Each structure stands twice: as C-alpha cells, then as structure tokens.
C-alpha cells in the first residue's frame, strides 16, 4: 500500500504560539481522510502545511515517499491540488478561465491553452456540473457554484491528492451530498487520495476511511470513524455533551448533540 | 523611374545650394554672451525674437522694432509691442511659435528664461544670446551689447548717456544729505513680501537716498504685520503687477496701523511694478519716482 502523505513530528508556530504540535501521521494512497476538530485546533494550518503553502518548521513531510521540499513547485502542483474555503474574486474571471488556471502546472510560462488543456477543462467542468456556467463571471455565482468551479479547477491539475478545506460549509444539503459523492467517485474511479477538513462530523463519518481528530494542534484520535468517534474523545475535544450510536444505514457511527435541556 | 530619380537629384542639388547660400558663414560671428556661452550670431539680424518683456522694451528704445518678429506675453511696453505675435511666456516659451517665426537671433535673460528651453532652441539651430542684467550698471552694459548686436550702436550710446545723466542728476542732489529715510518696498499682500539685497528695487532705493529695511540675503522675504511694525518704516512703497483696486486696498489696510511712521505722515505710495523690476531703461524713471518719495524736500513731490 503506497503512502500518499506522511508527516513526522510536524510542528508549526505562529507568532510564538504553537499551532501544530508534533503531529505524526500517514495517509495511504486512495484513502478518504477527513480531519475534524474544534475551531482553532489547527486543521487549516495542517492542510496548508501538507500542500506546501506554509513553510514547515521542525518536522518532516513526505509526499509519496519523497520529502515535500524536494519537489519543484511545478511538480508539487501536479501532485497535490488545494481547494480553499472561499475564493478571492476582486477581479473575477469567467468560470472557464478560472478552471483553465488549474492547467498551469502542465503548461509553459505564458500558459497559452492547447487543445488538451481545453479538453481537460471541459471534462472537469462536466464532472462538477458547472459547464453551463462556463462564460459566467465568478462573482455572479452562488457559493456552491463557486465551490464546484474551484473543484473543477483542482481537477484540471490532474492531482494524485486533493485537499479540501471545509468544502461543504456554504453548501445546502443536496449540494453537500453531491460534493461528498463526487469525492467518493474520484477516489474510486481515479484513485485520488482525498483529504478533507470538515466541520460536519456526521458527514465525515459517512464517507471517511479514516478520521483525524485534532485538538490544540495535537492528534487526539486517529483511525477509522468507529474508533475515533467515541463520546469520551469527542467530549474531550469539543467540550460539550454528545451521544454516539450507530447510523440507521449501518456501518458507521452517528453523533448527536445533547442539548442542555435534556438529561441523559 | 529614371526620370523621377533625376528630378529628385535636381531638387536636392538646388536645395543644397540654397542652404549653402542661406547659411553662409561670412555673415555671422562668434561671441560670448553674458551667461558665458559661446554663440554664433548673424552680423545683421533681420528676424529677432525677444524672450522677455524687458528685452522688448530695449529693442523699441533702440529704435529697432522693425526687425522684432515675436515677443513673450506681458510685453506691454511700449503699447505698440502688444500687437506683435506672442511666443508664450518667458517662463514657458512656446518653441513651436518661435520656430514658426524663423528667427535668426533670439535674445534671452539668464535668470528668467528656463535654461532647458534655451538649450533646446540652440539645439534646433536658433542662435540665442543671453543677457544677465542684475544691477543698474549691468543693465546699461546689456543695452550697449544689444546695440552692438542689432546694429544700433549710436542709438545705444545716446540712450545710455541719457540714462547716466538722469541718474547723476539724482545722486548729485543727494550729496551731503545726512539721513537715509527707512523705506519698506512692498510687493505682495497676503503674505506681505518685500525686496532683499539682490533686487533692482533695493539698488534704486539706495541710489535714491533711502534705506531698504528688508535688506538681506533672501531676495523676496516674507513678513508678518508685526515685523513690519517693528521695522518702523518712514516710507512705504506698494508695488503690484495686479493693477486693479487691490493695491489701493493694501494702502487702506495700512491706515489701520498709525503706529507706523509712514502711515502717520501719509507717506504711502503706489507704483507700477514694471519700472522697478524690469531690467530696462525705465529703471531710471523708477529711480526718479523713488527719489521724490524718499526725499520730497529735495526733489519736490512726485505723485
């Protein structure tokens, strides 16, 4: 089994404060790996470290067995794609133009699109269902449409690993499901390793092969959802009362918040 | 094809010949102007452009206005000068209009015309002679040099003789007078600006037997009201380029400060600024006016 991402004693401090504290983990190739945890636990930082956006301090990251720092910027971009939570739209491109930007790691300096690039963009837009929006400007789209355009752009990079930072945060229920199903399909059909940061514990439980519960920059729990989502570990991390039982679909845990007015 | 080529060669030959004739070196001479530049100027200039109002005045005074083809704006003396084509102002020369007039000589003032413009004119093939009149003696020298350049030496000598005799008349009558009245020569109102040592007005005040209370290294020093009160001038001369009612208003404003000797004795005079700041023959007129203001007991009152 190939290892997609491996970190060793990874640490990162911001303004003197440690944000990530000696995190060591491995993500197998083709895994659906979800990172959960309370706000400020360092989830986004960990993700940015993994794709090379933030420079690491102490600790080591290996991508497919090679040190992250040994990759050229270009080859790293062809290996890992990053989908942030929100898009900057100060000078908005059309969807087609934005998606084509994802072909940059495969192009020359000026990025003049060739037929292969246009074809890849078309396919990516079809996969995420935004091809009918190709000529619309990004700032005219809804949050969900922007998210899907962003994923199409990531797909154009033809990455082996795709990192998504809270992709379902601004989506309505049907789009949330569609997105998770899309990631599942990518994993199955294209053997893409999916690493996702999520707020939604239950959604994560339904799709993830393995979960990482991050708390104060440290690994609280790491493993299959059933192992990680226990009342003890969740309450320790999130600081609130929860109930965990099995989902009616079977096969994965279901987490329910316990409101203050109920007594167990 | 061959016919056309032959025609072009013919025209080129004629043009070259004409150019040779037109630019014949025998009609020009090398001189060093008052700014230390070596320029080649024609012996008998036929098309002269004046680059400052004072130069215009001198050309007319030398009786050579018929070769004057262009002047800068504010060339308003004598009145006939107002009819001549304008070539911009003397701080912003209009090069296109100057070139258009095809001058064979331009006359500039060193500390007035921008050097860059003068250099460009020279580079475009127009000879520019720069004068540098900074005091009454150097104005007289400039008049003589212009007389030489414009083939009006006799006229220049006569003019200079007349100027010198008028100056001598004033200075002669002042011999023996003990005191020098304190003079404040005001050229600006908000803020109040006066004249320092390196100005014509200062020199004329001195020649007219007065003491310039604003003397100093700054050419146009600024004062507030309080400082002028402290200087206690005996005579206030108000000079302005703005001929409308504003200088009258300035005089009336002084009326509110009777602690000033000049105000108490009513010795506040309004003058036309041109005869005090242009390096031209009319400086002598300015001197005579000032003498009348400063020593009315000797020169009788001037208005």
């Amino acid at each position, binding site marked *: 089994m190939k290892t997609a991402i491996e970190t060793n004693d990874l640490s990162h401090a911001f303004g003197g404060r440690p944000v990530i504290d000696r995190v060591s983990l491995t993500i197998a190739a083709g895994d659906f790996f979800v990172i959960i945890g309370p706000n400020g636990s360092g989830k986004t930082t960990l993700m940015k470290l993994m794709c090379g956006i933030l420079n690491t301090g102490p600790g080591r990251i290996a991508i497919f067995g090679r040190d992250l720092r040994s990759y050229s910027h270009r080859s790293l*971009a062809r290996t890992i794609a990053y989908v942030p939570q929100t898009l900057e739209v100060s000078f908005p491109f059309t969807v*087609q133009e934005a998606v084509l930007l994802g072909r940059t790691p495969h*192009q020359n300096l000026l990025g003049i699109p060739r037929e292969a690039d246009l074809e890849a963009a078309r396919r990516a837009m079809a996969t995420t269902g935004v091809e009918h929006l190709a000529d619309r400007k990004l700032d005219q789209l809804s949050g969900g449409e922007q998210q899907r355009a962003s994923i199409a752009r990531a797909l154009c990079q033809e990455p082996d690993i795709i990192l998504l930072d809270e992709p379902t945060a601004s989506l309505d229920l049907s789009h949330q499901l569609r997105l998770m199903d899309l990631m599942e399909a990518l994993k199955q059909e294209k053997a893409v390793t999916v690493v996702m940061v999520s707020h939604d514990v239950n959604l994560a439980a339904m799709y993830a092969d393995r979960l990482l519960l991050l708390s104060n920059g440290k690994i609280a729990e790491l493993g299959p959802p059933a192992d990680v989502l226990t009342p003890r570990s969740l309450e320790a991390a999130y600081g609130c009362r929860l109930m965990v039982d099995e989902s009616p679909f079977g096969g994965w845990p279901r987490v329910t918040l316990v409101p203050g007015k109920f007594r167990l | 094809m061959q016919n056309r080529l032959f025609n072009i060669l013919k025209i080129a030959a004629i043009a070259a010949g004409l150019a040779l004739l037109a630019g014949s070196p025998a009609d020009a001479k090398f001189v060093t102007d008052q700014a230390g530049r070596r320029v080649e100027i024609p012996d008998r200039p036929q098309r002269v452009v004046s680059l400052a109002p004072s130069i215009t005045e001198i050309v007319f005074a030398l009786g050579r206005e018929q070769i004057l083809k262009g002047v800068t*704006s504010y060339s308003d003396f004598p009145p006939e000068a107002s009819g001549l084509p304008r070539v*911009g102002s003397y701080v912003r020369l209009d090069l296109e209009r100057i070139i258009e007039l095809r001058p064979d000589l331009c006359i500039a003032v060193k500390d007035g015309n921008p050097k860059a413009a003068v250099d460009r004119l020279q580079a475009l093939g127009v000879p520019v002679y720069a004068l540098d009149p900074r005091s009454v003696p150097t104005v007289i020298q400039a008049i003589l040099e212009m007389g030489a350049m414009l083939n009006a030496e006799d006229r220049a000598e006569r003019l200079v003789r007349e100027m010198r005799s008028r100056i001598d008349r004033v200075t002669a009558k002042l011999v023996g007078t003990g005191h020098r009245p304190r003079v404040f020569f005001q050229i600006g109102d908000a803020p109040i600006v006066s004249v320092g040592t390196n100005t014509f007005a200062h020199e004329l005040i001195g020649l007219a037997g007065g003491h310039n209370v604003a003397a100093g290294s700054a050419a146009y020093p600024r004062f507030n009201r309080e400082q002028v009160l402290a200087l206690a001038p005996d005579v206030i001369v108000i000079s302005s380029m703005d001929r409308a009612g504003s200088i009258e208003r300035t005089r009336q404003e002084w009326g509110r400060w009777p602690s000033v000797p000049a105000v108490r004795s009513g010795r506040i005079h309004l003058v036309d600024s041109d005869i005090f700041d242009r390096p031209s023959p009319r400086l002598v007129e300015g001197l005579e006016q000032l003498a009348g203001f400063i020593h009315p007991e000797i020169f009788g009152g001037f208005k």
Partner: protein
Amino acid sequence: MTVSSAPLIKRLLLAAASLSVVLAAALVAALSSGSGGDGILRSLSVVTGQGAPDPALETIVWRIRLPRALLAALAGGALSLGGLVFQALLRNPLAEPYILGIAGGSAIGAIIGILLGLSHFPGVSLCAFLGSLATLVLIVAMSTGQSLVKKDALLLSGVMVNAFCAAVIMFLVSMTQDARLHNIIFWLMGDLSSADGRAVATLAAILAPCFGGIFLFSHAMNLLLMGNDMARSMGLHLRSVTAALLVVTSLMVSAVVSYSGLIGFVGLVIPHLLRFVWGPDHRVLVPACILGGGAYLTACDILARSLPDQGEMPAGVITALIGAPLFIFLLKKTRR
C-alpha cells in the same frame, strides 16, 4: 461580454491590432497639432511627405512634436502597465502606480534637484529617480519577510510613506519663494514638454525590457488574482514573483516619473477601462495597457497643448479632469 469569452489568442490579437491602430492615429494627430504651423492639414502634409517643403514646419513636427508624442506614448503605456501590475499584486482596484511611495519619493527628489538649480535632464530626472528608489527601499525594509506578500501590509506602508512625503513636499514648497516654485508646481502636475530625442531614446531603452519582462509574468499575475494560497498551490514561486514584479514595475514607473513628473489617473483608470472591455486575463491586458495607455496619454497631451488660448496646461490636469469621472463611471458599471 462576448469579447471577454472569445478564445485567448484571438482576443489578444484583436486587442493588440485595434489598440495599435488607435495608438497610431493618436501619434499622427499629435504630430499634426500644436501651437505652431498653419493648422492640421498643413502639418498632416508634412507628416505624409507631400506638398512643398517647409523647414520651419518640419523642424516643428519632427524635432519638437515627435519626441513629445513618443514620450507621451511611452509614459502612458508604462503608467498604465504599472497600475495594472499593482492592482494585481495588491488585489485592490484602487491601486495605482504611485501607491508604493513612488509619488512621494520622486517628488522630493525632483524638488531638491530643482532647488539646487539642476537642469531638468539629467539633473532633476536623476534626483527624482533616486528619490523613488529611496522610498522603495524604505517600504521594502518596513515590510520585512512575510509581509512582502501580505498585500495589505505593503499597501499600508506605501500610503504612510506617501503621506509623510506629502508633508515634506509642503514644507519645501512653502520655503520656496522664487521662480523655481513655478518649475516645482509644473513638475508636480505632470509635464511632457521637456522631451527631446535623446531623452526619449534613453527612456525607450529602459522601458522596453520592462515591458517584455512584465509580459512574461502575465500568467503569473492571473494566478495572483486567485489569492496567495491558490497561487502557491498551483506552482507559483510567490515570493520571488512578487519581489520581481515589485522591483521591475517600481523601476519602470520611477523612470517615467523622472521624465514627466506626476501624471495621475492614467495608471488607475486605463487598466479598469481595458479590463471592462477585454476581461481580466493579463496576457491580453499587458499589451493592451501598453498600447491603450500610450494612446490615451498622447491624446490627453494633444488636448493639454491645444485647449488653452495661450500656452499649455500640464498634462496631468487633463488626465485628472477626464480620468476622475471616467473612473467613477467604470466603478459603477463593474460593481453591483
């Protein structure tokens, strides 16, 4: 907008071709108008080489108007390009080429040069250039390390330095009481009248590699528009690209300012106008700004020379009078 969805190469060629035509027309118009000469038709005949030869008019057209028109075209192109690059680097629609202290630094340098009595070229120009270099170094030193790519930190440093320089300028101006005040005011308002062949050739030699270099970075600027993180994740060397663009563009704008003074609103408005028509892809916008900005300033300079009865206005006044309402109009059109 149908134009902005056309394929890239076609859009680039169309933009370059149409704006080249506009620039050529502006240059011909500039050669044909001015205070000398008997009017447009006569000057036009000199330009096309027909009609009887007239040495005075030819001197006017080729040795006075041509260098000036070329300076306007070069300056307009460089200022527009500078505005485009800073708008991309700072992701801010209000960014303009003087924003990183160049206005303040070059003005102080130029004023000192004028007060020292130096001639405009090379003396005052060199002082202006050194002044803007000094402020650039100051701003880079203030934004050390990480802040170089944090766009807001850079912007803030630039605004503060410009404000401080404005105070120094007011001080210097208030201390000046003679004819040099006139020169200073004209420099501050932007003034193309000092152009001559040698100056224009020097400036062209400086600007040409800057134009070429920035064009090579045009796709990188597209990536920058998506945000620092995205740009990095798609393979961009963020710090070196940002630093390179910053330095090259600052040098380019400083070179222009040292010749022409502070001509405003060109670098702010032209990128927006061209973006409105041709879309935000910098591979099209870089050549478009060079050509379109050049045409715009050439046209404004024609107005500056021909509007007043006597003499001329500073070019910066015309660009402000046209540019400000144009900018407001464009902002209303592009924001909802």
